[in-house]
């Protein structure tokens, strides 16, 4: 597939077509992951299969250390899975897949580059042309992220929230059809986090790439997603896949007051309580909740 042409089309399209779904289906087929550690094999992911459609916003929600991050690594081809396979479109992933954007928990900005130069990094490395077009897009993204005027600043001059916004702009600059986010707001304080959720939705609504979003924050997952994959403790397996299509978009503060919003949050809590991931109360005993 010709990355450059593809991305160019996307670039032009973002300006006028808001609700556009593009890209290819990601399918995870019978994937397991076993790490070989000094103390023996460590099962990170039990056999798992799911599909994500183009333009979908899917969250993977689970307790710490349940192999959520491993999922992203396997899907992006950064680490191989032990059995099973991942396919993006018809392509079986056996090496790093480069037509995607990656946002990590730490912003991983290059301290020695300016904000604009950080955002342009993917364009530079993927040698995308024409530069001017992408530069324009970088400015546009930074403006959308409330970072106008900071283009020439160095990352050390920015706050944590601003830095993470820069790294999101960087992931989106080449307009990739897939965006992988690994607990991107985990290191931010609660208020900044809420604001970042809205900023992300705003930016995403313009690009409509597929997002696979890793989090352990229940309300964040419900607020952002079309679907939520709820995972168990390690070794990670899918407990349930929730459909959130009853929460209309665009989402805003009113969304959080809808009965459906709380219904989903409670549903997920119940799953975690039944799993023993949450104790469910101050009496230290296992609750069995009925649906």
């Amino acid at each position, binding site marked *: 597939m010709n990355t450059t042409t593809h991305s160019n089309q996307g670039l032009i399209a973002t300006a006028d077509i808001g609700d556009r779904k593009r890209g290819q289906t990601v399918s995870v087929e019978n994937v397991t992951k076993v790490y070989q550690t000094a103390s023996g094999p460590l099962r990170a992911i039990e056999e798992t299969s799911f599909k994500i459609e183009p333009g979908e916003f899917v969250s993977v929600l689970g307790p710490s250390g349940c192999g959520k991050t491993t999922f992203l690594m396997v899907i992006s081809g*950064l680490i191989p899975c032990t059995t099973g396979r991942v396919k993006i479109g018809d392509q079986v992933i056996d090496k*790093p*897949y*480069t037509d995607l954007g990656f946002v990590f928990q*730490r912003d*991983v900005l290059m*301290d*020695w580059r300016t904000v604009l130069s950080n955002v342009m990094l993917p364009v530079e*490395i993927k040698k995308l042309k024409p530069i001017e077009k992408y530069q324009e897009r970088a400015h546009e993204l930074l403006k959308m992220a409330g970072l106008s005027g900071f283009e020439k600043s*160095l990352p050390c001059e920015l706050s944590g929230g601003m830095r993470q916004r820069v790294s999101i702009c960087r992931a989106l600059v080449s307009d990739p059809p897939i965006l992988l986010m690994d607990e991107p707001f985990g290191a931010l304080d609660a208020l900044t986090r809420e604001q970042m959720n809205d900023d992300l939705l705003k930016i995403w609504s313009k690009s409509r790439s597929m997002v696979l979003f890793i989090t352990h924050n229940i309300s964040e997952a419900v607020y952002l997603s079309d679907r939520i994959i709820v995972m168990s403790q390690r070794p990670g397996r899918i407990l349930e896949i929730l459909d959130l299509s009853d929460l209309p978009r665009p989402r805003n503060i009113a969304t959080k007051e809808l009965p459906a919003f709380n219904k989903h949050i409670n549903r997920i809590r119940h799953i975690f309580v039944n799993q023993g991931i949450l104790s469910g109360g101050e009496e230290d005993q296992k609750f069995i909740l009925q649906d």
Partner: protein
Amino acid sequence: MTTDTPQEFNNIQPGASKHRSLWLKKLIREHGLALVFFVGVILLWEVYVRAAKVPVYVLPAPSVILQAMIKESNEMLKHAWFTLYEVIVGFLIGTAIGIPLAIAIVYSKFIEKTIYAFLVASQAIPKVALAPLLIAWFSFGMTPKIIITTLMCFFPIVVNTVIGLSSTPPEMLYLARSLGASGFETFWKFRFPHGLPSIFGGLKVATSLAVVGAVVGEFVAGVNGLGYLQMIRAAFVRTASVFAILVYLSVLGIALFNLIGYIEKRVIRWDPRRQLERTQE
């Protein structure tokens, strides 16, 4: 605060005297205390030597040392050029071998297990004690002094470069791979710049060691250089001259250290401490 100062400077171009007073103000604000302390120690020294009538061949007063510095400046500067030359050439060779070797160590398990392990073990040898051997092999010219200087500054450069290049956060390397960066790009655009603060740390340590190396070489088999001159002056119990040479040597060391510091400031415009904190999170 301090980061605003350069802008202040740019804004006040026309009045040169204003410019100078600002420069002085900055100097006093940043180094005032150190300056006062330094002057205090010199004064105390002067007063003590005069009051206690310490013989000049034991401890000359600062004023006498200053006289020696001025009176013998022609000869001392002539010798200083030799020392400076040895220090700079030795340092440059140490850097030119040290940094590429460090890169090889980071990228090759084999070299790490062989050469690096050997290097670390070889640090148990006092390099100063190699001087007689080097003289025996390379005779009395500048070569043995340059080799000792190179040996002295080589190790901190290698170690700090290795540390700097291996400290790249894993996420940054993941990012590089997910962007499809080549091996060279990963090095040049990610690992190397990320390691720069540590590399400069090594270079700074190396400058002071380079001076030590050159002077030791001159002690053992000098016909030129400040170390050689110091030996001669000491043999004739001209203590004031020995002190004067010490001052010249310190100035040389400080100048080189600050030169590297200046280059570092121009290259590393970000705040490496924050980078370090986040690396250690």
